[in-house]
């Protein structure tokens, strides 16, 4: 009985159930891994570079830089030295993953002419602030900063204790000769922006920028981020392959049935629509069963969390991808000669 179930529809059902569980756990783990990594690096990427100026004579340097540069996809932090708070000024250009926002908004792109005195603070910080006419203000050095957003993720993280101010306001505190961090979308945008920072600086100014340590050979290969990314790639490719195999096997199992339907004179449309319907029914059930099994697993084992969008991604990667993988073996088997199957 079990063998019979496993052979036909059961094989398809259980394969998709198992794939759904595995993929959901992988996605959840990736989410947790990425979050942990960023947390451990103070929410800088692995490629972020520290820099400072010596003998900077142009107080309006940053406004000039932001209005003139054509670079995009970078973010610059101005570190405000303080023992009580982790305070940074933030300015960015282009599509660059900034800080996870739990509530409200983030600073606007570019650099304002005037200090805005606005802040985005962590969840923990915001709780300690008092309400003033429905608005919250973060006070630092007798200056009030209006809170426009709250940073944070579902799980507690370092972010909860961080304070971000608009870049211009922090220059009032630190002056132009401060400690900065340059971060960006990828290694390329970062190194381009690093060059621009140097380019726009006055002649007498020295820019001290941490070296862009270009890794080569084995070191390049085993760079942590690249390695994990490759690993994820391998995992996803193996899922694709198994989906293709399972779908292929299932169609092969229906070969005889296709032949018999043709023997009986069933129209091709009828045969194909029946196959697609059966496929969607069985795999979607497998997927749903997989999700039901995953939820206690993910929350029980505290594998971070799983979001609705993840479930959509898993559905796309399993059922929808399988539907595409179905096309080729289906066409192949629709052309099978009836008497071939009867032998």
């Amino acid at each position, binding site marked *: 009985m079990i063998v019979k179930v496993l052979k036909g529809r059961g094989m398809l059902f259980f394969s998709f159930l198992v794939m759904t569980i595995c993929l959901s756990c992988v996605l959840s783990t990736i989410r947790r891994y990425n979050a942990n990594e960023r947390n451990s690096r103070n929410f800088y990427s692995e490629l972020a570079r520290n820099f400072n100026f010596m003998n900077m004579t142009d107080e309006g340097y940053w406004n000039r830089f932001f209005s003139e540069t054509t670079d995009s996809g970078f973010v610059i932090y101005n570190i405000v030295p303080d023992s009580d708070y982790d305070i940074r000024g933030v300015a960015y250009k282009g599509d660059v993953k900034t800080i996870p926002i739990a509530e409200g908004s983030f600073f606007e792109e570019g650099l304002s002419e005037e200090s805005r005195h606005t802040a985005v603070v962590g969840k923990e910080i915001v709780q300690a602030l008092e309400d003033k006419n429905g608005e919250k203000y973060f006070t630092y050095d007798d200056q009030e900063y209006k809170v426009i957003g709250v940073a944070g993720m579902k799980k507690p993280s370092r972010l909860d204790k961080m304070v971000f101010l608009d870049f211009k306001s922090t220059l009032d505190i630190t002056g132009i000769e401060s400690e900065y961090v340059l971060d960006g979308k990828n290694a390329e945008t970062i190194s381009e922006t690093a060059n621009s920072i140097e380019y726009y600086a006055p002649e007498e100014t020295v820019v001290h920028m941490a070296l862009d340590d270009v890794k080569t050979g084995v070191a390049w290969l085993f760079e942590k981020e690249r390695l994990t990314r490759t690993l994820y790639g391998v995992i996803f490719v193996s899922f694709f392959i198994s989906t293709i195999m399972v779908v292929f096997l299932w169609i092969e199992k229906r070969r005889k049935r296709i032949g018999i339907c043709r*023997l009986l004179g069933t129209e091709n449309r009828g045969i194909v629509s029946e196959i697609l319907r059966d496929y969607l029914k069985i795999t979607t059930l497998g997927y749903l069963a997989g999700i039901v099994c995953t939820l206690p697993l993910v929350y029980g084992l505290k594998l971070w969390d799983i979001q609705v969008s993840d479930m959509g991604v898993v559905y796309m990667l399993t059922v929808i991808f399988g539907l595409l993988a179905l096309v080729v073996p289906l066409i192949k088997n629709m052309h099978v000669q009836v*008497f071939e*199957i009867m032998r």
Partner: protein
Amino acid sequence: MIVMNILEIKDIKKTFGKKDAAVHALRGVTAEIQENTMTAIMGKSGSGKSTLLNILGGLMAADEGSFTYAGKPVDTSSNRKLRKYRRDQVGFVVQYFALIDDLNVFENVALSLRYQGISRREIKKRVKETLKLLGIESKIKAYPNELSGGQQQRVAIARAIVKKPKLILADEPTGALDVKTSAEVMDIFRQLADTGNTIVIVTHDPKVAEACDDVIVMEDGKVVEQVS
């Protein structure tokens, strides 16, 4: 009484493969098959019996020649037309039954009636009637591997006749059955012939041929003898 030929076959030729590898399966077959009779096609293996049956059933088209069904030429020019002829006029029965293992008896037989705009209720009614006629209505929920060879062949016959075709084409239908069940299957065919069906059976078995009204003997892609 006027005897009507349900099939009139004229000089049918069929070749498989090309050039050096060409196999001339049929080299010009001419024959007539009467309505409401049982006709056996006999001959050595490779003499073209199955090929002829497949052409008569609309599974493939002949290279040359033609045949008429119930007085009208069968148009074999497109797969669509062949399929329609096959669906509406022909019931096939094959040696190894060709049942689907993961469908039960009811579903296997009902397969014949699907995608033709027939209501579920009507399908249910007709399948039950047919199973009753063949004496296997008690097996309606059984799966093929729970049935004996004879029972499986009855299911296959039920599937062939449930859509009420006039013509039943059987390729070695008793080839996988013992003597006793073979005889039972032949009794069923006789019953069907007596109630308005025409049956053509490809067979090796002289006993089966004996039970038929006509015998066509083939050799090397040609009819060498037709006895009534």
